[in-house]
């Protein structure tokens, strides 16, 4: 893919690797809290967690549809919001709801900004943890149902290999590298 390449001695290559490790380490240590990403809606998890539908409470998987059986939990599309908010909910109707309908009228898809991401060399399947291992969302995600606004900083405990391994060891889940690394 590169226009010009020179063979690099293994020593140099290793030096580069170490340099990268140091750079990332420093970046991690000195990171300042980033400004809240501009989410399209100021979504209130706490408020939605109290909602009762005809067939029971509004669960996590109503909006994060892939969380139970898929690899990715997913973030909801506007159509998911509209399945309730086509008609005004609550009294008086909130400004957020007006925004939902405004977005729907404009035809612009909802682009949530994912703040916590697994690195590219990590494979994580929600289905393996929820449907297979029977874990509850809160076991990793904690008190999401108390959040009144979307997360602003990456949730580091979700992408920490130590946390993954501690749980895998405690429950006798596989610890083969390629279970989680790709």
């Amino acid at each position, binding site marked *: *893919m*590169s226009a010009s*390449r*020179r*063979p*690099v001695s*293994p020593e140099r*290559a*290793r030096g*580069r*690797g170490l340099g*990268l490790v140091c750079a990332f380490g420093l970046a991690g240590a000195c990171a300042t809290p980033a400004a809240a990403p501009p989410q399209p809606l100021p979504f209130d998890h706490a408020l939605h967690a109290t909602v009762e539908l005809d067939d029971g409470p509004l669960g996590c998987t109503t909006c994060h549809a892939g969380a139970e*059986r898929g690899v990715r939990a997913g973030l909801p599309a506007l159509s998911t919001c509209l399945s309730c908010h086509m008609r005004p909910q609550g009294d008086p109707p909130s400004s957020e709801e007006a925004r939902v309908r405004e977005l729907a009228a404009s035809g612009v898809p909802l682009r949530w900004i994912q703040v916590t991401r697994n690195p*590219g*060399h990590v*494979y994580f*399947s929600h*289905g*393996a943890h929820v*449907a*297979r291992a029977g874990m509850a969302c809160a076991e990793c995600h904690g008190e999401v149902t108390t959040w009144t606004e979307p997360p602003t900083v990456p949730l580091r405990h979700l992408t920490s290999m130590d946390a993954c391994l501690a749980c895998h060891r405690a429950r*006798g889940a596989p610890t*083969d*590298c*390629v*279970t989680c*690394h*790709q």
Partner: protein
Amino acid sequence: MSAKDPNRRDLLRVLGASVGAGVGATAGLAASAGEAAAAPARTRRWGMVIDLDRCTLCSSCTVACKQENNVPVVGPDDEHVGAQIEWLSILWQEPEQPGGLPQGMPFPCQHCADAPCVKVCPVGATYKNDEGITMQIWDRCIGCRYCMVACPYGRRSFNWETPRWDGTQIQMLNPDVATRTGGVVEKCTFCYQRVRRVRERAALEGREIEDEEVRRLPACAAACPAEAIVFGDLADPESRVSELARDPRRFQLLDYLGTDPSVIYLKRDRR
């Protein structure tokens, strides 16, 4: 022959376990110990049979492999000095008679049962997983290239520089396989990302992996128009791959080294 070593080791382990059971003097203890040891239902050994009678040397497998695994193309200059990255290539051979048809064979990592590369890795970046695949953890590799020297098949490649993916190439990368950086050795993984997906699907449906769904699982096998490449569990005597591996035409590359490859070739009979 040293190829039998793993089996001998297994035998010793079984003997050790039964001695332990004798000391425990209860059959129940032996049963529970057996269950604890055998957390996965049974030990798999993923393997591949390549039927050279069926292979037309069309090279589809090599293209599919590159596409699936984000294997960089290095260009003619680097290729000329041997810096190409090859997970699967065609091992070309001289025609038997001058002017005869070209001969060759698809040549992936042999996934040896007794892998020389694993023995020399100083950092444990390469290892045999419990399903018989010789894995390489890219981020753990320090680029010493001992494994490349140790591999008798030359099926490992070194990234002399971090590949640069431009423009639309980034969108064509497979998200299920991490791209490798410079200074890292890489190799065929039997498309482990696909194995993982099948295993997960089977587990969610509460069943075992079926032979039919893995026969053409790796990208090379999926792409082969002649179905010359068959993938499966060599430890399961019922699987298609085991059935083919019992063919009298079978051979393993450099079998006298005792590496016991999991890639088994069927000799070309057709002229």
